[in-house]
């Protein structure tokens, strides 16, 4: 942990994530106004004393919307990544441990899927499942699975030939014991690092889907949707688009920096 704080990227990442986490947990309590309430007299105004981040096309307070939208936006990214990581790890570990033709079949299939860009793959799945927050989350998770499986498998492969695994095999431990006690604890590091970085991508894909009208639906305060709804007022009041846009960028940056620092801490080679 002290490693993380000492590196500048890690520190910045932790600070950003703390801010985002506070918004997620206390957002609805902190919001000064009802995020759906109209204030028609002050619609599309810039920052003021009453509305710190201005108001949108219906005169809704942007700060309140941002704070209440934090949980749906961030938890979408975290949730989608968690599902994707879990599914990917199970597949990857299975392939890595079993080896042979099972490994070949699984990995070649996943390689094929990996060739499709994440966003395109997600759009394909959402189109198939239909729009909505749950569907979008599932789609991002599915799109993440092949990449995560590949990383999980490579960690498993590098560990499979280590001495401590050989020793366990020599002790005639059961397959289940070896996987759960020897392989997974040692392979989990790179997976966590990758997952942290991926959360930022998940947040951005989620926002993209919201923007395209395929994720969260109005009047939700999901940030991507806020950008999409406000877009036609962009020339009149840039705040409406800029504020949720910056919020998305900041949280994605937070996860990214934190993930980078995490990797540096986990992979000793990079250290001086």
């Amino acid at each position: 942990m002290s490693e993380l704080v000492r590196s500048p990227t890690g520190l910045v990442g932790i600070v950003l994530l703390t801010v985002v986490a506070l918004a997620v947990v206390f957002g609805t309590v902190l919001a000064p106004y009802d995020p759906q309430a109209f204030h028609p007299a002050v619609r599309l105004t810039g920052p003021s004393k009453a509305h710190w981040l201005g108001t949108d096309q219906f005169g809704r307070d942007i700060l309140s919307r941002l704070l209440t939208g934090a949980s749906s936006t961030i938890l979408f990214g975290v949730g989608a990544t968690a599902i994707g990581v879990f599914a990917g790890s199970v597949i990857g570990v299975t392939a890595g441990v079993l080896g042979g033709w099972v490994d070949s079949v699984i990995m070649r299939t996943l390689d094929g899927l990996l060739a499709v860009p994440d966003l395109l793959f997600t759009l394909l799945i959402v189109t198939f499942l239909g729009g909505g927050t749950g569907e979008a989350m599932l789609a991002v998770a599915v799109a993440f699975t092949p990449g995560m499986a590949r990383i999980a498998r490579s960690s498993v492969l590098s560990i499979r030939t280590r001495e401590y695994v050989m020793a366990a095999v020599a002790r005639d431990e059961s397959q289940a014991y070896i996987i759960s006690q020897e392989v997974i604890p040692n392979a989990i590091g790179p997976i966590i690092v990758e997952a942290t970085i991926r959360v930022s991508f998940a947040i951005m894909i989620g926002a993209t889907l919201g923007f395209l009208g395929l994720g969260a639906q109005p009047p939700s305060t999901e940030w991507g949707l806020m950008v999409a709804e406000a877009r036609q007022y962009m020339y009149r009041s840039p705040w409406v688009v800029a504020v949720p846009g910056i919020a998305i960028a900041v949280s994605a940056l937070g996860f990214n920096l934190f993930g980078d620092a995490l990797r540096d801490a986990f992979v000793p080679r990079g250290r001086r």
Partner: protein
Amino acid sequence: MTNLKANRREVVIGLAAASAVPAIGFAQSGTPEIGGTLKISHSTRIATLNVMQLSGPAEYPCVDMLYSGLTRIAPGRNSADPDLATSWEANDDASQFTFSLRQGVTFHDGTPFTSADVVATYEAILNPEFGSPARSVLDMIGSVEALDDHTVRFNLNSSYADLPISTAHANARIVSAAALAGDLNDLETKPNGTGPFKLESYDSARITRLVRFDDYYKEGQPYLDAVEMHLFPDLAAESANYLSGNVDVMLNVQQADYARIAAAEGSNALRVPAGRYVNVVMRQDQPPFDDVRLRKALALSVDRQLLVDLVLEGLGRPAYDNIVSPEFQYAIDTPEIPYDPAAAKALLAEAGYPDGIELTMVASNRPAIRGQVAIAIKEMARPAGFDIEVEAMPHDTYLANVWRKGTFYMAYWGMQPTEDATFNLLLTSTASYEDTAWFNEEFDELVRRGRSTSDPAERAAIYAKAQEIQLRDTPYIIAMYQDVLTASRDWVRGWTVHPLNRVFYIEDVWLDRA
């Protein structure tokens, strides 16, 4: 031909004569220059060019360029101008119309236009199997007969003084008899009309290009060599292209963009008050909307002036649930409905919902105004006890699953040329797009009588009564009338928009490149 009871006919004929003078350009100055390509941007797909079926906002200008009808809606008014018919005469009780057809007109493929084409077209429109949207305003026609090559007689089942306006319906343009006898799928992509422009290429996802038809009946017109319809699915891209001068005309301007477009240098923005509206559909053959008190409660929960300001940026007028907007000849003075959540709450309790009611309202995502109105109504109606969840969905899904089936959703309609067409589009039991299950026999009877009455005073009384019944029962909530907005670059001369958004007179448009 005596003067007795002939005043309606005189009106009709007089009108035809008055406008038989070749279209004198209003909004035009200088001598029209010949040549050039007019680029028009639009944001909705041209899904079909089938004149018998189409109904898209960007499809109407195409059909207005490709085809001519017997009559055409006059610029800026809801009356009929001659088009392929040079004049018409009605008998005394307006149950029989005789149209004299223009001589020497040819279709784009060179075949001459005759009365046989008129008969074939109208028989197709009246055939329910074609499902023509024009049928509901023309179904009083009993038979169409060709008296000679250039005279057609319409025998009506009932009197109908507005027939020349109905024959101007965008879907009642004249198609050649040969096309109707051949493969009907060809109508979609190979239109053969008598209009000022003919089709050169059609790509529904990108550009539709039309070129001058040299044998158009108006001498020396059209002025333009070609017209290109450019599709911009992204509204921001559309305005950017217009402002940079890449396109000459923006067919529809969004409210949010109007002030910016109007203020831009070299841009002429045009705003025309119209009877276009977003309506809340509440299906009445099942609970909860079978109770008029619930509908009235919702009507009281909508702040109409605020809605105009929020959603239309003030570019419209508040409406008070009357489907007939003030532009119409027989529109009544609709009483204002106040925004009164307290009264709405009381009415809701009376209807059996003292603790409020939860509802799900569907709003399709195109155009965005549906969702905006839905969200605004959700918030406005909350204090009265309405807990409305807005369900947004892609427009295609909405058309397939919700439209005319759902119980509570947002619809969006353009203005119709007559009261009769307005009522028969949505509200009568046999309306083309009936979706309320309101089924009011007294209303149906009044609309039927209004159609066959020629005396204006009597007609006014009938239509007033019909509107009162409508207001009494609140089949729809209609909260505002939306202005029609369009814009053209300052080198474009003669670009106009009609409140109906159906006729564009593009043969009068020319480009002043000097």
